[in-house]
């Protein structure tokens, strides 16, 4: 149980001739919410894609729950929500969920549960193309919740959501983690940091720090995550 859910060793990824991840090493603990923070373009999405096994990598190794990332054993145990909602526009919310429920082999009752969890209970028969951007993002999130995955990789799941719903979703993430799931949640909004058990700060394809929020603030002497991030960037550049 103590062993990490996700282990990344010496990961290098090139995209369009640029080195997006530069010899990155990281271990994500089980049963906790780890926040992946950093400015847009720092490699967060690429790292998440490598973890779910859809990214071509040049070097290094990614292991999830003891298996190579993207392996067959992992496909119903790892949930992934992309930044842009990846759902079918021309069918209803329920039809989308029903399809993924069948793919994951999840119990049919989970469909209604997942829709309720993301706060779309009253809209389940609406076509996805008639929903707002935030609602579509929630449908996309609901499809990942269906399978009750052991590892949930969420790429900016709360962007553009209203604060009430955001708080509710973080409550859901907390329940999942309490039940033993491992969550990796990316954000470029530093104020979501306080909701995470651990923080990974990234910049230019490398990990600047990996610690809890209090530890981060203590070691940098900064008042908040934003300032701590600046401190770490300066320290890195001086070194």
């Amino acid at each position, binding site marked *: 149980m103590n062993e990490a859910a996700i282990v990344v060793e010496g990961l290098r990824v090139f995209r*369009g001739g640029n080195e997006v991840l530069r010899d990155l090493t990281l271990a994500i603990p089980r049963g906790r919410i780890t926040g992946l923070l950093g400015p847009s373009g720092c490699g967060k999405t690429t790292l998440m894609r490598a973890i779910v096994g859809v990214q071509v990598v040049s070097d290094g190794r990614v292991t999830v729950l003891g298996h190579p990332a993207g392996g067959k054993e992992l496909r119903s145990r790892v949930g992934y929500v992309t930044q842009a909602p990846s759902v079918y526009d021309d069918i209803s919310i329920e039809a989308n969920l029903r*399809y993924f429920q069948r793919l994951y082999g999840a119990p049919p009752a989970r469909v209604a549960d997942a829709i309720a969890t993301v706060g779309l209970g009253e809209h389940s028969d609406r*076509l996805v193309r008639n929903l707002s951007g935030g609602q579509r993002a929630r449908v996309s999130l609901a499809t990942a919740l269906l399978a009750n995955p052991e590892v949930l990789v969420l790429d900016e799941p709360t962007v553009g959501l209203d604060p009430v719903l955001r708080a509710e979703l973080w409550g859901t993430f907390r329940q999942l983690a309490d039940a033993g799931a491992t969550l990796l949640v990316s954000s470029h909004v530093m104020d979501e940091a306080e909701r995470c058990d651990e923080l990974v700060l990234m910049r230019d394809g490398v990990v600047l720090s990996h610690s809890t929020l209090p530890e981060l603030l203590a070691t940098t002497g900064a008042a908040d995550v934003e300032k701590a991030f600046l401190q770490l960037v300066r320290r890195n550049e001086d070194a």
Partner: protein
Amino acid sequence: MDPRLTYATALRVTGQLRNDPRTIALLLVVPVFLVAIVKWVYLDQDRIFQRVGVPLLGIFPLTSMFLVTSITMLRERTTGTLERLLTTPLAKMDLLLGYALAFGSIAVVQAGIVSLVAFGLLGLETEGPAIAVIGLAVLNAVLGMAMGLLVSAFARSEFQAVQFMPALLLPQFLLCGLLAPRESMAGPLEALSNVLPMTYAYDALSRVARGEDFAGRVAVDTGVLLGASLVALALGAATLRRRTP
């Protein structure tokens, strides 16, 4: 591979079409409309109508399924749903067969309606059984689907995907023997027509219309169509990459 996942995918794809009644209407009505026009054009030359009618019935599904599949699959690629599907337990073959099942069943309805109208109302005649015409039409639909799937990998936008239709299907239509006997074509054209799948679709359908039985050339043609579908499907499967740059 898991037949339940194949079936779930077929249900999802037909669900997408069901919510798009205009596309369904176009799929079902346009072939009928076109056959009626052909009938009218050759009103005084029934011999020509009888020669081209049956092959046309079988070629419509190929064209429409080619278009519908290339656009649907292009959307899967560009909206990120394909990437997501490939992180689930769904195997690539489940996805492809799900598409084949969905579009194959639509082709049955499409070919059924246009055959009913052509044989029942427009006086089209076939020496061979109408069911063989419908069967070949469905096989052509699967071939069109497999080709559409393949070209969707080479299109960056829906504009490009649509342009593949005249680029890949019109030459086959011109050379398949429907407009002019292939023997009368210039050598290089005839040679080219020998390697184009629609040639075999036309050949099989016109032989069935003339009442040739299934053995012999019709069986060979059917085998070629089946083989071409499998090759296109396999090539299409190779373009579905779990890991992308």
